[in-house]
């Protein structure tokens, strides 16, 4: 047995939920049946008022906290373990936390790598493009299934934050608090450009086979690796990279540490940042489906909650009834503080209650996943009020 920290949710087990009711997508296409892979932490209270939904970002999944294997000492916990657990901001002593793998994903929910019942083969490129709105519609059905009429809070960072905004717009009476972290009202041309490089990397891999690589028993791993490498750069900040790859004082603070202590005068991997990116890209490509990566970058590109509201975000929020907490990080250049301030401005214009924090952090976009002290304190304070509202668990410490 490995030692599991006392403030961990411990060993967890995902559950598969099957849905038979067809889901009409924004594109007009219909998914007849689908599965959602879900994890929950904590206990739903008697009046189902203490449920919070955690929405994952581009490469996330349902495994947000805890561990699977009690024996494996090397296993890393879920992707938001710093926030979910007893005594943590999303305190499982008080909240029932729900996390799911979104439709189109590759971690157990129905997606491009799932079997298409019509053909007996994986969907591949035939899987429809799903939008944030479609995801939120599927999440609402999951809430129905779990007996949750209204979330105490819906929470997410990056693409997760976009789902939170969509909840506040599409289901105004089904959440009391919206926590929108490191997000943007919609992608800019620069954001879309990075996604396009990622897609071209995957689609130009000779093993891609127009997305039908499953049928050829191949996998466009090189393409996914390149896609992830370019994505990964946008998640970090210049300052963080200088720090991370600049341990050698002789190289100054430029992060130019060498791998072998000298230049190769060839096209080998000279600098540590090169091998780091290659390693990150390579290990990601082994665990993520290429078609899902393509799909989710499109989901990001298409996100625009203002389409039905004359391009005005404040009009989109007009019917929202929840309170908002918007958080950005100083060194995030993928979705910079400026983008979060646009969300805040729209909420102010719509006369909605909103709090906004700009957290000083060097970790870039990835900071939203990390236990930055001020960020954790703020989430703690805010969620503690939310816990008070739903009636704290009297038996909890």
């Amino acid at each position, binding site marked *: 047995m490995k030692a599991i920290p006392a403030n961990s949710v411990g060993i967890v087990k995902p559950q598969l939920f099957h849905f038979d009711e067809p889901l009409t997508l924004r594109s007009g296409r219909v998914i007849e049946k689908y599965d959602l892979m879900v994890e929950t932490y904590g206990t739903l209270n008697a009046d189902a008022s203490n449920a919070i939904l955690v929405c994952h970002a581009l490469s996330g999944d349902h495994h947000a906290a805890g561990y699977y294997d009690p024996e494996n000492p090397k296993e890393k916990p879920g992707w938001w373990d710093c926030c979910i657990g007893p005594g943590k901001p999303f305190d499982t002593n008080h909240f029932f936390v729900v996390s799911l793998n979104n439709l189109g994903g590759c971690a157990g929910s129905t997606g491009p790598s799932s079997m298409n019942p019509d053909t007996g083969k994986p969907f591949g490129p035939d899987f429809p493009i799903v939008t944030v709105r479609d995801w939120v519609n599927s999440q609402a059905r999951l809430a129905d299934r779990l007996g949750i009429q209204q979330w105490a809070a819906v929470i997410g960072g990056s693409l997760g934050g976009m789902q939170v905004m969509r909840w506040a717009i599409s289901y105004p009476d089904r959440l009391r608090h919206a926590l929108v972290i490191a997000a943007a009202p919609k992608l800019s041309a620069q954001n879309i450009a990075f996604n396009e490089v990622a897609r071209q990397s995957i689609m130009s891999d000779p093993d891609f086979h127009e997305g039908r690589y499953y049928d050829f028993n191949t996998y466009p791993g090189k393409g996914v690796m390149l896609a992830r490498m370019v994505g990964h750069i946008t998640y970090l900040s210049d300052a963080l990279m200088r720090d991370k790859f600049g341990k050698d004082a002789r190289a100054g603070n430029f992060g130019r540490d060498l791998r072998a202590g000298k230049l190769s005068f060839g096209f080998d991997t000279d600098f540590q940042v090169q091998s780091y990116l290659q390693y990150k890209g390579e290990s990601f490509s082994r665990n993520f489906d290429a078609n899902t990566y393509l799909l989710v970058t499109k989901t990001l590109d298409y996100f625009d909650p203002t389409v039905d509201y004359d391009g005005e975000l404040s009009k989109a929020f007009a019917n929202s009834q929840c309170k908002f907490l918007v958080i950005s990080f100083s060194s995030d250049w993928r979705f910079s503080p400026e983008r979060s301030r646009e969300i805040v401005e729209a909420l102010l*214009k719509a006369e909605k209650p*909103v709090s906004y924090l700009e957290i000083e952090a060097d970790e870039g976009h990835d900071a939203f996943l990390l236990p930055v002290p001020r960020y954790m304190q*703020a989430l703690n304070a805010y969620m503690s009020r939310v816990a008070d509202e739903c009636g704290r668990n009297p038996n909890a410490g």
Partner: protein
Amino acid sequence: MRADLKIIESWIEPGSRVLDLGCGDGLLLAHLKETLHIRECGLEIDQEHIQQCLEKGVSVIEQDMDKGLPNFQDNSFDTVVLAQTLQALHRPDLIVDEMLRVGKRCILTFPNFAYWRHRFYLMTGGRMPKSPHIPYEWYDTPNLHHCTIADFDELCRQKNITVLDRTVVDDARRTSMLMNLNPNFFGVNAIYHISR
């Protein structure tokens, strides 16, 4: 409850929308939420104060008002409050303009530099006045633009600002007959209720 907050409270309509610039730990807004069920919004740059607002459940936005309020709509608040901060801003006149643009009515409080003790301090000692509510040295004070009640009255005249009400209070935030007789001489703190 502080007497100056009581005066501010008496000028605010129940259920109205209130913006507090430099809201500190959220004390005023939390109180007004409880008593008058206002819809609150605080502006603050101090991290500790922002944390205290979150703990109180007061909506707070991290923003530097010295850069203006461009993200706030005209007439979007019933009342905009600026308490004990006017003198610490880079351009107090511009923030007054912004307050009157965003709010239908505004409430301002500031220490009156022409209070007789300050005058006495400067006249006899020949040094910049210090007192319990202006405890700083001239070189480390956050107060960039001290003004007097007469100065602020003049600003209101120049900008055609309507003074709906004005009260002066002492350090204990009480008012007295003497202060009302000659506010600019006996008043320690001024509280203005203004509109365009």
